[in-house]
Structures are given as structure tokens and as C-alpha cells.
């Protein structure tokens, strides 16, 4: 669309951002190197708020749940606000060395791809707006949300949206990777942990007592045998397994983490019920303690593929010479969509080793990633969410 004024501005955004890239990289480093495991985000949250205060955002505060929020006032108080959010928490505990290594075109360190880049870009937006002389009619709400991943179960964003006093016009969810990513729907999801615990008799262990790992293996076999429907599209992902102490000792404790996804939340619940029955049965048959616990869940929600917000995002991403990768994510996006707030998730740069201690982001693609955010905010401000 050659006459689209926003598309026409994108190349200028990219070069202007390249000229001030240190601002963004500094925020990625200064915030990303503060450990922020889920439920212990306070230090990163305080630093995030301090950076936004220093960047002279109009209002900076923490909501009642502890989410740090800044508002950049728009020119039209009658317009509902636009949101940009990034989750603050990471998988890595305080004991992990968060010293990031910076090379000519890369930053390497724990959490950099999930979600230090998202947090760093979010904290940089007030200054980027100022440098690029960007003004909006709507207020822009920048929210770093806490307690998002794993057992956090998206509590931060749930609270934020539950208590936000006004309608919300639209939202962008910022994720570090991968550039071109465009999530516009969220499957229904239940994340669960299955624990197998073999009882011991006051420290005396029978020679042929059940092996907790093998018992869980039986659970796995039966879960794999569940017939999943083609429609609604559904799947079970076994994401982690943990158990045992050393090679020659029969493990008495093992855990299994899995996620059930489906385009229909009813199907997610149905599969969950089936797995729960499997777990109970195997526990009973093997005379071991078996428990299944729900860690988090989200309902299925989506924007139509032809929603103007999605179409606009596809255009902007393509105009930056990127291939839009349309998909889903069960993250903050789910909560926005379930509140019927138009929203998409965008990736900001390229990277690899995601969620490893040596995760790596590329510096060179970042200006394009930020330019798409600016383009999207301008598009949303001009009304693409209002359809």
C-alpha cells in the first residue's frame, strides 16, 4: 500500500532508531541484568519504573498488585488508552549469574530473549517517541507485568485488566523474539504438573518398591494414547520431566510438566479430566501417591484473521522486509483477547537458545523490530482497533 502514510514513515523510523540504539541497548542491559524470577520481580520492577521516570513519562506508578506502569498522555482525553506490555519475570533465579556479554552484534545472557529485549524496548519508548517527535491522540500505557510465566499464571496482567478503570482501545504485547512474529489468537490452555511420590516406610525401603520415573512413564504412555480430535484442533505438549537422585537408587519422587492446548477451552478441560483419570488410576494400581495440579490456564480467544489490527500488522511487518509469522500465544495476549480488547503479540529481534542461560539476541535487527511497534501504535491510534 504505497500511499499509506504510516508505511511511508517506517524507513525513517529505522534509521532514526539506529542512531539512538544505545538508549535501547542500555535499557536491555540495565534491566535485564537484574534477576527477576517469577514472584521476585521487585528489584527489576523498581528499576523499570525508575527508568521510565527518568525518561519523563507523564505518570509513573505501581498498581495495587505491583505492576509498574507509566502513562504518556495523549492529546485527546476522550480516547481510550492504548497499551504496550512486556512481562518482567524470567525463568532464572537469583543464583544464576546475570552478567550479560555484549559482542559487536549480539547480547548473550539468561533471559535476554525472554524477555529483557521486550522490557528494555518498553522502557525506551518515551525517549524514542521524543527523539522521533511522535505524538498520539490516545494515552499510551506502558506496563511491565509481573507474575506472568509458569506458576505466575498471568496474575499481573489479569489484575491490571480487571482493575483498569476505563475501556482499553487496543494492546501490543512485546516479546524479545522472533522478529516477524505476529500472534493474534490464543488457544485455550491448561498447564499442569503431575507428581509421583513413592511412600517409604520410616526410611526402610522395600527392595522392589515402585520406581517413580517408571510410573510417570506409564502416565506418559497413556497420555500419548489419548485420541485427540482434529477439530477443535488440540494437542498435549510434555514440556519437562524431573526426578531421581543418582544412577543406582530407585527414585521415590518424579514430576512431569505438560500443557494441554486447544482452540476450544471445553476440549482442554475434557482432555485434562481424562489425564486426571489416568493419573488416579495409575496411582491406585501402583500404590503410589499421584497428584495432578493445575499451574496455569487461559481461555481460548482470538481476533479474526481479517481484523484490521491483524491486517495492519501484516502490512507493517511486510513493509519492513520481514515475513509475518502468524501464530498464537498463551500469554498476556490471551488475557487482552478474553477481555475483548484487540491485541497482538510482536517479536522484536532475532535470537536463539531461548530460555537457556546463554540465550542470545541480535542487535542489528532490533531497529526494525522497534519500528514495527511505532508503526503499530500509530495505526492503532488512527483507529484500526476501533472497527
Amino acid at each position, binding site marked *: 500500500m504505497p500511499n499509506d502514510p504510516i508505511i511511508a514513515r517506517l524507513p525513517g523510523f529505522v534509521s532514526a532508531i539506529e542512531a539512538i540504539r544505545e*538508549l535501547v541497548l*542500555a535499557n536491555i542491559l540495565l534491566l535485564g541484568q537484574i534477576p527477576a524470577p517469577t514472584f521476585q520481580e521487585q528489584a527489576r520492577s523498581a528499576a523499570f519504573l525508575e527508568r521510565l521516570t527518568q525518561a519523563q513519562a507523564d505518570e509513573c506508578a505501581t498498581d495495587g498488585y505491583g505492576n509498574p506502569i507509566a502513562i504518556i498522555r495523549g492529546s485527546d482525553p476522550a480516547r481510550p488508552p492504548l497499551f504496550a506490555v512486556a512481562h518482567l519475570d524470567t525463568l532464572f533465579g537469583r543464583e544464576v549469574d546475570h*552478567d550479560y556479554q555484549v*559482542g*559487536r552484534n549480539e547480547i548473550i545472557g539468561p533471559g535476554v530473549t525472554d524477555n529483557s529485549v521486550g522490557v528494555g524496548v518498553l522502557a525506551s519508548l518515551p525517549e524514542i517517541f521524543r527523539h522521533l517527535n511522535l505524538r498520539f491522540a490516545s494515552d499510551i500505557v506502558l506496563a511491565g507485568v509481573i507474575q506472568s510465566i509458569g506458576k505466575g499464571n498471568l496474575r499481573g496482567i489479569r489484575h491490571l485488566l480487571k482493575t483498569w478503570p476505563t475501556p482499553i482501545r487496543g494492546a501490543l504485547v512485546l516479546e524479545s523474539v522472533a522478529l516477524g512474529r505476529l500472534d493474534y489468537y490464543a488457544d485455550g490452555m491448561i498447564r499442569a504438573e503431575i507428581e509421583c511420590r513413592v511412600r517409604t516406610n520410616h526410611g526402610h525401603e522395600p527392595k522392589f518398591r515402585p520406581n517413580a520415573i517408571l510410573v510417570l512413564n506409564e502416565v506418559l504412555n497413556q497420555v500419548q494414547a489419548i485420541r485427540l480430535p482434529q477439530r477443535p484442533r488440540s494437542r498435549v505438549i510434555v514440556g519437562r520431566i524431573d526426578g531421581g537422585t543418582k544412577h543406582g537408587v530407585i527414585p521415590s519422587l518424579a514430576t512431569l510438566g505438560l500443557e494441554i492446548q486447544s482452540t476450544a477451552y471445553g476440549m482442554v478441560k475434557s482432555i485434562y479430566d481424562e489425564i486426571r483419570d489416568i493419573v488416579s488410576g495409575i496411582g491406585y494400581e501402583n500404590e503410589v501417591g499421584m497428584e495432578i495440579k493445575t499451574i496455569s490456564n487461559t481461555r481460548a480467544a482470538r481476533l479474526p484473521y481479517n481484523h484490521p489490527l491483524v491486517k495492519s500488522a501484516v502490512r507493517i511487518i511486510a513493509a519492513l522486509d520481514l515475513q509475518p509469522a502468524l501464530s498464537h500465544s498463551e500469554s498476556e495476549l490471551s488475557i487482552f483477547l478474553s477481555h475483548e480488547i484487540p491485541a497482538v503479540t510482536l517479536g522484536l529481534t532475532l535470537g536463539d537458545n531461548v530460555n537457556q542461560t546463554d540465550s542470545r539476541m541480535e542487535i542489528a535487527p532490533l531497529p526494525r523490530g522497534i519500528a514495527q511497534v511505532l508503526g503499530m501504535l500509530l495505526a492503532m491510534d488512527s483507529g484500526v482497533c476501533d472497527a
Partner: protein
Amino acid sequence: MPDSWLRRHTFHYAQFRDLARLVAVKEEKGMTVSICLPTLNEEKTIAKELIILRSELMTRFPLVDEIVVVDSGSTDRTGEVARAFGAAFYRADEILPDLEKRRGKGENLWKALYITRGDIICYLDADIKNIHHRFAYGLIGPLILHDGIKYAKAFYDRPLAVGKNAVRPTGGGRVTELVIRPLFALFFPELTQILQPLSGEYAACRQLLEQIPFPIGYGIETSMILDIWQRWGLEVMCQVDLEKRVHRNQETKALGKMAFVIMQTFFRRLSRMDHLRLQGEMHHQMIQYRLVGDDYQADRFTYGGHERPPMIQIPAYREKFHRAAAGVPLPTDGV
């Protein structure tokens, strides 16, 4: 011992965190500020320092006018990385090339005087793991806000419990506590108030730095303190608590070499100041032994104690900065 210097001249970096104010005063006084990073194979750490310093102290707040990297001959990609992140990169050998070539941190710092243009020069090591811009503005701040202060020295968080509940940074590393502090206590007790005399981060006014000699190696921190103290007194100095600095752990053997050079520099100064008369020459070799098979082999480290003269004595410098041979007199007003 007048311990009031410790109270009056010890600051915390947070006293200078109002960067907008620092910039306003700097501009009002017409000052310029340079940061110099001396390097030798720092490709893994230098980018982070440059990103944060440029972002916070150049782009966001124009407190610093230039960042230069002076390199001792790195064999890695230090130069390429430094240039990629916007620093002016110089090889020490290429600065004032007509002079005899020397190699060492002190040499880099001395030559930085020639290629920088700042009225204030802030020296930072290029391997600070937990780099934060407070390392620079905490040292530059006192020189901008307090007319009488011409030299600001960093000290860091090496917590030692004091009293009931107070935990304050009070001391230095092993070489500080085992070498330089005892020497200061023996000969110049007033200087023991400087909590970490060997810290690698400090800022000073050009008019002061250009008038003192620079040993080319590790002795630079010791000599700088002694020379400034002898010539202008403790009142032109201050020290700033920069809180935590993650230090690179060095092996005892490496610290031994450092201690050797520092002692050599110290005794040379003592002799020059007529505090101690050496009956013979000091030796220039540090000898350390290691067991190889059944044999003890000597590792010899030679340090000739070379010093560069005050930069003001270099004609090319005087010409570039329009200086008279005597340098610019320092104001003597207090803090």
C-alpha cells in the same frame, strides 16, 4: 591526624545523580569532559561499558563530550568492537609516535591527555562487569560542582562490619590492605584516609594531570596520589563511594607482581621526597618460583620503573593545548 578530610571529602555517588543539574553547571562553567578507557584485549567487556556510558551520559544527558579508548596493543577485536559502539579508538604507540615506545596502563592514561580534549578526564577500567554510569558521573560530579576539588577517586563496596549494625565499605583488596595501606601508615598516615588508593577509576582536571609524571605500569595509582598530595595537598582530592564493583579475581602470583611494581614506585617516591635514603639500587626483577617436575624454575618479571614526564613538558602537547611550560595554576579555594 586531621580525620576531618575523610568526613568532608568522602561522597556517595547518589549525591551527583541529578544529571540534569550536573549538565547545567558544566555548561555554565564552560567545561568539557572526556572519558578514557585504557584497554588490552577487552573485546568481551568493552561494548557493554560503551553502550551504557554513551546512552546515559552522552545521548540522554550531554555530560560527557567524548569517549576514547587507548589500547596497549590488543590482539583480539577490542578496536573493532570499540569503534562499532561509537568510541574513538587509538593505539598508544600511534600517539606521539616520535617518543620511545612504552607499554602499560600508565602509558595509556598519559597519552590520553594528548588525544582527549576535556577539561575533566575520567579514567575507567574497561573490564567492569557490573558497569553502570554512576562509575563515571559519581567521579565527574565532584569536579563539576566543587571548585576546589581537582581529583576524585573511587572506592567500592567491600563490606566490613563496623559497630552494631553499620556495614560500610571501608577497605580495599589484598594489595591495598597488605601493601599500600601499611606503607601509607608508616610514612604518610594522612593518606590512609583514602580508602581504596589502588582503585582503577578516577577523574581529574587536566590542569592537574598535565603537571604530574606517569609511571607506565601498575604504579600509576600510587604515584598519582603521592604526587598530587605532595604538590597540592589532600584538599584538592575527594573520594566517592560507587557501591558495588564486581572485581575480576586475580591469582596471588599476579597480585605479587602488582605489589612489586607498587612498592618500587612507592620507594622511588620516598627517596625523591627525601623520606628514605636507599643505600643501594633497587632491583628491577620480581622473581617467583614454580615447581616443574622435580625442579624449581624461576619466573622473572622485569619492571624498569619507567615514567613519563609531566605532559606539560612535551612541546607537541603545549602547542596543541596552547599551554605555557609552567602549566595552568590551580585555584586553591576550598570545598
